[in-house]
């Protein structure tokens, strides 16, 4: 309701023409583009003073606004950080008049090689392959991702405030923004991500909505760099540094004495983790934790004749995959690791103290491999006599 009133106020002050770019009824094309084109050249103050309202136009606007409101009730509104509502529609439902005149050529009048923020490397990426009709540059070009250059109902908040991103701006005034991405963006995560999800919704992105990163309002642009030939997050060598921006603890983990080869660039985070979402609580690439480990450690899969129960249940009962100060990525070293679960009378339950060190009476249960000096088949054994994991 509040937004429809604002529509009316806008219409009254600025001339109905601007308000008529609604989501439901596009205006007659030629008349509209001419008027809106004219409008976009004038700063708001002039428009407010100069233009008069005519009755038919006002009635038409009222009708449009009423229908738009009914339509908006059917569509969810995503709350913008600034407290107003913005319709979460896709460009398919936005009127023609909202787009710039010449597409990328309009944008590149300012966003050229001399611009402060370099964007031309987009042409070295898969997004800028015209012959592939799925790509932005086969269609709406820059505006496929950044939204319409001229403000419209989709960006009513901006339109009320300031006008169009591609329009003329007074000297000293700040240019109204277009949809932008990344940490400095004004847009909420849902709007930013909504642009990417128009195309990138399938495959590994299926579980995105409701996933840990999405509910934490991480934007696609938090991890991905689009205007570059070489997106760091898509390369094992540079990917971990992108993840470490938020996952601070993991940076230290890979410097521990026993670690997976992430810091040397042999493995990237995405060799185990599905950052776009997964059913497992730690976002793994395969349906279960063990299956993820088996993609490199298939010799541990078995199944074995004699199984070691914690191995069959979850590798992380004994191992910590990122890094550990104990050998073989163990949470703790034997014998204490094993003595958390083994309490039989005899050597399993003996307290192994410093008396077992080389300086006293060197103990087979403590030194070298400790329990694994005899029980070497810790992951299970297929030997008929492998009952005690010794064969």
């Amino acid at each position, binding site marked *: 309701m509040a937004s429809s009133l604002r529509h009316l106020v806008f219409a009254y002050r600025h001339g109905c023409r601007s308000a008529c770019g609604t989501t439901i009824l596009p205006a007659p*094309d030629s008349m509209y583009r001419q008027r809106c084109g004219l409008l976009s050249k004038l700063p708001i103050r002039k428009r407010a003073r100069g233009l008069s309202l005519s009755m038919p136009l006002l009635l038409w606007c009222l009708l449009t606004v009423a229908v738009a409101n009914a339509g908006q009730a059917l569509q969810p509104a995503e709350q913008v950080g600034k*407290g107003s509502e913005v319709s979460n529609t896709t460009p398919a439902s936005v*009127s*023609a008049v909202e787009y710039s005149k*010449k*597409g990328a*050529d309009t944008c590149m009048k300012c966003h050229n090689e001399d611009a402060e923020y370099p964007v031309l490397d987009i042409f070295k990426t898969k997004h*800028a*392959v*015209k*012959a592939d*009709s799925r790509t932005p540059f*086969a*269609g709406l*070009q820059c505006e496929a991702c950044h939204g319409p250059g001229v403000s419209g109902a989709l960006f009513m908040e901006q339109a009320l405030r300031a006008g169009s991103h591609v329009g003329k701006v007074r000297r000293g005034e700040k240019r109204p923004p277009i949809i932008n991405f990344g940490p400095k963006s004004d847009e909420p995560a849902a709007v930013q991500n909504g642009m990417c999800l128009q195309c990138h919704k*399938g*495959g590994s992105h*299926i*579980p995105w909505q409701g996933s840990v990163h999405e*509910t*934490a309002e991480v934007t696609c642009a938090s991890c991905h760099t689009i205007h570059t030939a070489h997106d760091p997050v*898509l390369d094992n060598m540079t990917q971990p540094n992108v993840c470490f921006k*938020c996952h*601070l*603890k993991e940076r*230290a983990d890979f*410097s*521990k*004495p026993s670690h997976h*080869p992430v810091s040397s660039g042999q493995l990237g985070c995405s060799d185990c983790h*599905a950052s776009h979402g997964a059913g497992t609580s730690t976002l793994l690439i395969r*349906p*279960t934790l063990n*299956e993820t480990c088996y993609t490199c450690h*298939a010799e*541990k899969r078995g*199944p074995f*004749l004699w*199984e070691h129960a914690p191995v*069959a*249940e979850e590798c992380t009962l004994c191992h910590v995959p990122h890094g550990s*100060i104990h050998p073989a990525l163990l949470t703790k070293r034997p014998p204490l690791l094993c003595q*958390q679960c083994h*309490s039989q009378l005899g050597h399993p339950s003996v*307290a192994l103290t*410093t008396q077992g060190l*080389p300086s006293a009476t060197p103990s*087979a249960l403590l*030194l*070298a*491999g400790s329990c694994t*000096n005899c029980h*070497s088949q810790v992951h299970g054994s297929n*030997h*008929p*006599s*492998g*009952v005690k994991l*010794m*064969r």
Partner: protein
Amino acid sequence: MMKRDMKVTVTSGQLLPVMLCLLFPLCAAGETTIVDVPAGVDISDWVCQYCVFERGFSGDVEAGIGSVSDDSFKFGEYNGLYDDGPFLIGNATARYRDGNAGHLDLRVRELGLDTRSVEIEGGRQGKYQLFLQYDGKPHYISDSAMTSYLGSGSDTLQLPPEWVTAGSTGGMTALAASLRDIDLKAERKRTGVGIAFIPASKWRTAVNFRHEVRNGQKKTAGSFFFNSAQLVEPVDYVTDEVEASVTYTTRKWQAKLAYFGSFFRNQNESLTWQNAYNPIVGGADTGQRALPPDNQFHQILLSSGYQWSERTRVSGDIAIGRMEQDEALLAATINPTLGVALPRTSANAQVDTLTGNLKVDSTVSNKLRLNVSYRYNDRDNRTPSEVLDWVTTDAFVALPRRNLPYSFTDNTMSLGAAYRLDKATRLRGGYEYAKKERTNQEVDETQESTFWAKVGVHVREDIDMSLKAAHAERDASGYHLVTETDPSQNPLLRKYNLADRSRDTVSFHAGLSPNERMSIGLGFDFSNDDYSDSALGLSESQEVGFNGDASVILSDVTSLHAFGGRQRIKSEQAGSQTFSTPDWLAKNDDTIDSFGIGVQHQLMQHKLVVGADYVLSRSTGRIRVETGAPGADFPVLKADLDTLKLYADYRLKDKLTLHVAYWYESYDSKDWMLDGVDPDTVSGVLGLGEDTPRYDVHAVMISTRYRF
């Protein structure tokens, strides 16, 4: 998206022609979607005359030489620089674009080292794509191991002819003279090939193959009752993986159907070794251990998402799989004086897996968002359970035992809500219930309930903070001894994954940008597990961590990055030497400190870039075993790592850059399990005598990179 699909594996030859036959008819119609432009938008004028579309060849080549001062497996553990001396530097990227969606990309990395990788990708974007990949992943484990066994690295270990057996290692008089160095390492070589087709609008099919050969030798051990020897086991594995998938994507509905197959083959079945000790019984002079048997895994996966409305999305997946292993069983013993019959000739091991997830996420109103999800995971172990006669350590016939195939069923349900309090603040909360059922174990069922709450404050890029707290309670259905376990466990023991547990976690994260030139990240994580009902076993474990990092742009030409953190992991467990109530206590206390700082500076109008990075990591582990007697504290476990990298990039010409780097790394460690433990230190363990790694390595590198 493609990076994930690049996971390539090779299959058996039978699958490939079948796949291609299915795909070729589809790919014959190579049509793609028409441009998705809103009705009424006329883009005919959008000629993109200023667009600099890529066309032709481009790339860069880097060639050079480097040198490492010392050899150290620990320094070169994963990076290939384990050997002293010179090495070649070779990196290259090349791109070709025909201006019409045809593309070819080549990337070569570290050509002069065992870590070399080559990736070639090409095709017609929007229609098809092929790629080939080779990747070397070495793992250098230990270069200080020594063994008297001949044939180390093969499946048969023999002692030299002059070997003298003894009752303990102290009496092995031929030991010292017969010791030889043996390197413990494993090298993986992966080759992969993948094809992806877009046969029609909204469809995509892909087949990926990956073939991995892993060669090397690793540490293991074998014993004859209480006489043990650390041995070297051959690693000669081949793992083939295949993934074939079909994806369908529309705005409303997306689905992916895939087959995943993994085939593991071990070129060796067993490891046979000669007993170095006096045989404890007649005939126990050689032992035989099983090596990992060949196995295979097949899985069908379906994942799908449906946009019920603009507000609500339903997504889910299901995966049905089977693990199989049916290698011929080895003999129960190779002791010729003992004869034991086996009830079956092969393991006939099989596990059926079923995993499913379903999630509904809905933006109920402007301020409120709800989600509910359910996860099911079942591991159904169908390996036949039989009583088997067996021989302990090729020495004594033991009491028959039944093999226990472990099965698990998990059911997890989660509810979550997010409420936007105001434009910057969001409250979130949720509840999760997890039930886990197990067979053949001390506990049949555990149930865990978790409550969590989170508050997040986000104000553009200036401030981004969140505080999360969670509490979980796990109950075990009732602890009973597993009768097949012989000797039996102390009835007071509670295995920590089956025990009652109370878990608390708190975490705080903040990202701050006080100004345009600075960004700071802070993190605090705390977790405490309390097993208050466990008289024996793990009773408490706690983890606390502080982390921070900062990026500062000091000037237009200088930037700085720093990070630091401390993590402390503590745990406590109890044991009983008298098979009764607790009479000893053990405490573990690990602390890891890390710090890093890096600075980069540009000189000579950006022609010269110099930089320095310093990273340190200090790990200490304290173990204390309290029995009432003195000397509870073990020597401190220690690992100190210092890394300094200095580099300079000088632009000689427009396309030619000279790169010079110096790398110094120092590592020092103390490990009471290895320090002072020679092959004959322990009377009943003929060890490998490994040393705790320590090194001081300098490396220099000089290379030129030409960009074309």
